[in-house]
């Protein structure tokens, strides 16, 4: 994960030697901070921690049903990965991979949660009724899937969207304001 954004020259042809080279300018890309504001240490931390925190947030999401966690805390943790990424790398604009607009994410989350609540109606049950499925997967063993997990996934996405929206408005929004004000005063 440390070799992000530096695509080797002539790598356009997909060879077996370079199939795993990142093709996206991923984590810290596009807009970078002013040199004076940059801290390499923080960027390093972001690069290493970001995937870990995201995985942890997914763990929280799935573990919620039997351990501490859930969609709400999972979404907040994932959001905080993005906060870290923002603090280290500056605003996420359209040149970066994660350019999904936060309101869209919020809407998707809300839609998933609402649709999940209506699905039981199709099977003649009450709204928001949940069902438990248990099945066995090789290697992983017995897996218990509760249909209310989808509600949790909706919550997760919505919370993530809310945090990203916060970053967009209060974070880069105010940042752009400050920059604009400075430009205007000069």
């Amino acid at each position: 994960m440390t070799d992000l954004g530096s695509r080797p020259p002539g790598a356009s042809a997909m060879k077996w030697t370079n199939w795993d080279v990142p093709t996206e300018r991923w984590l810290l890309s596009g807009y970078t901070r002013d040199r004076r504001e940059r801290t390499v240490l923080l960027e390093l931390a972001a690069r290493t921690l970001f995937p870990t925190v995201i995985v942890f947030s997914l763990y929280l999401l799935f573990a919620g049903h039997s351990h501490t966690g859930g969609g709400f805390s999972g979404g907040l943790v994932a959001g905080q990965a993005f906060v870290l990424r923002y603090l280290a790398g500056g605003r996420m604009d359209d040149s970066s991979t994660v350019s999904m607009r936060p309101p869209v994410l919020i809407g998707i989350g809300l839609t998933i949660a609402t649709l999940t609540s209506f699905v039981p109606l199709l099977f003649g049950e009450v709204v928001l009724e949940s069902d438990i499925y248990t099945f066995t997967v090789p290697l992983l063993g017995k897996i218990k899937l509760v249909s209310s997990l989808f509600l949790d996934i909706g919550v997760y996405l919505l919370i993530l969207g809310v945090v990203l929206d916060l970053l967009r408005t209060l974070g880069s929004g105010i940042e752009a304001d400050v920059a604009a004000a400075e430009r205007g005063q000069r």
Partner: protein
Amino acid sequence: MLALVAAHLLVALVLPFVAARSTRATCTVAALPPAAALAWVLTRAGDVLGGQEIVETLAWAPHLGLEITFRLDPLALLMTLLVSGMGVLVLLYSVGYFGSSADGKRSAPLLLAFAGVMLGLVLADDLLVVYIFWELTTICSFLLVGQAGISRESRRSAMQALLVTIFGGLAMLLGFIVLGEAAETYLISELVANPPGGDAIGVAAVLILIGAFTKSAQLPFHNWLPAAMVAPTPISAYLHAASMVKAGVFLVAALTPVFLGVAHWSVLTAVFGTVTMIVAGWRALHEYDLKKLLAYGTVSQLGFLMVLAGAGTRIAAMAAVAMLLAHGLFKAALFLIVGIIDHQAGTRDLRELSGLGKRMPWLAVIATLAAASMAGLPPALGFLGKEAAFEGFLHGGSGDLVIVAGLVLGSVFTVGYTARLLWGAFAGKRGVAATEARSSGAVLFLPAALPAIAGVVLGAAYPLVDVLSAGYADVFDAGADPYHLALWHGPSLPLLCSLLALAGGLTVHAARGRITSLRERLPNPLNAQRGYERIMALLERIAVGVTGRLQAGSLPTYLGVILLTVLTVSGSALLTRHTPIEDLRAWDRILQVPLAVVILIAVVGVVRARRRLTAVLLVGVIGYGIGGMFIVDGAPDLALTQFLVETLTLVAFVFVLRRLPPRFIQSEPAPGLRIPKMLIAIAGGVFMAFASMIFSSARQTRSGVSEQYIARAEEGAGATNVVNAIIVDFRAFDTIGEISVLAVTATGVASLVLTSRYQRRRRRGSLPMTEQPASDEAEPPRAGHGRGPPRGGPGAGPRRGGSRGSGAQGSGSQQEEVRE
């Protein structure tokens, strides 16, 4: 019936797509559902008049006892004929009237929706369903009158129609509920079968009458109707002839059998109706705009109808039915005729029109037919109605005789303004050049001619109308010798009244010059329009005052108000009720002590902090400390959430702090406020401390709900984590609600932050050009929080003088953007 109403609304939804291609096609397609409704109701007419009622019920919310019940009885049959028949005619007329203008594209779907909700209104048997359709007609009329909302006048008229009728509608809803709860049924048919008694019914009657009076434009609420004349003519014709204003009369007619035992029901309708009939008729005598003249004519006729519909006798009820039908026919015809004149001649001012009778002889003929019905001349339908009306009141006590006198006077004015209309529209006038106008095509002419001719034909075929009106009127006591509608009852008092009205009306018209000058000399102390405007202005002033006081724009003020409210409401309960704090312990686990010490130190630090960042960080410390408490008490889910939210809050605070001065303002703008603020803060803190101790001591054992949650988490929700089971299963509905709130809040905050940014960017982008509108838009909120002096103190809101401490913070306008 349900399918018909639904078809209207569905086609109305699809129509805008047709409108994109052709306006004419839109109007034609729009005429199909009312035509279907008309055809359906005509096939059923025989059964219904034979005494059979058609009922359809759709279970809506059976648990709440809510059902949509539609019922076709003779009164509903009559109204359906009017609503659908006029709907077809008006929409066909629109094909010619609107041509390919954009107005038609908007109006046709709305007219169709209007016809649909009106159909639902007249067919509905359930009072609550009636109310829903009632308000839907209000909304449709608002959109129709307002049109594209371009002219100030149409916006104002639409708003007036909306406010007045919604005001009445709300009163009526209250009346419906009182009535329905007292009778334990909301079905009109059951109410008619078993009229309830008691004091509550009297109150319900008044409330329902307010609704009917506002809708049917009775004095003193009548002014919205003439104002609504700004709408295009087909819309006015439909509003006046068949729908909207007829709804009030229809409702009174439908409920009169229920309120037979309530004395003031018939008194109120008689008094308001008669006064409305006379006053509006008098107004119509002086109007120059033909449409306005007709509008006041409608108000006058509605007064007449209200008297008849509310009287509660069989003859009056028969007269009401005949007049409802007659008025629908002649008013539609006359409006459409005036529309043709307006369309062809370019004016409808009777001072400018001259000699149209010669240019458009056929139009003059049908106008005369319709006018004959309006004036109550034989053999038109209007004559049948008026005869019956006079007959209905002539044999009562002195009160009834006063009503007859009022009705005769009203009829005199009716004949007067009918003559004025015909004379104004078609006569040649001395000193006025003959108006240039081409004859209209059949598309405009036929829809106007049909109802005019029908008015006379139905009058001649009076046994038919007699059956129809008797179908409704038979709810009332018929007496020994039931009355029948007829053109000739022999020489009788009603005939004398009619002759009196005719002679008086023609005299009034002949003396129009003198009467108008007399009117100008009369004092005019009461003006309903002025009254309405005064009330609206007063409301706006109160709104501005209240908003200015409450939305002072100062965070300390808001906080103070909230704290004081909590203290007075909850605090007084705490003081007056003796709630002991039981089982007070110093600590449960020793780890709580160091955490408490850390929190207390941070609290002292926050209060003493002078820099914003310090304060925010210390608040964060408090939050983490409380999260630690949760861990110690064994609530990891709560602790995790607390930590995460605390972190996020901290980040958000730091983001915002970049735009705020680093220090809290030192100098207080109002030093005298410091002590009260401290007192409020301390009192709030003490209250919270005691409250939390009392609350926690009140719960020594698990509640029954918690036991159930824990017991059922595994088998019911498949979760071993009961917190999660509660969130996603037991209380999942709450979760959905909460995330919806969160989504809306996040979007709202984003919009606020981004809006101020865009606005400033625009203002800066082209300063000289858009300065004025931009500052205009910003004026109201600024005026709002300009009222309260900007106070300092911790966390004060927008602070105009605050930028001096920070060089890079930008100008004052940027300061305003970020609120905490």
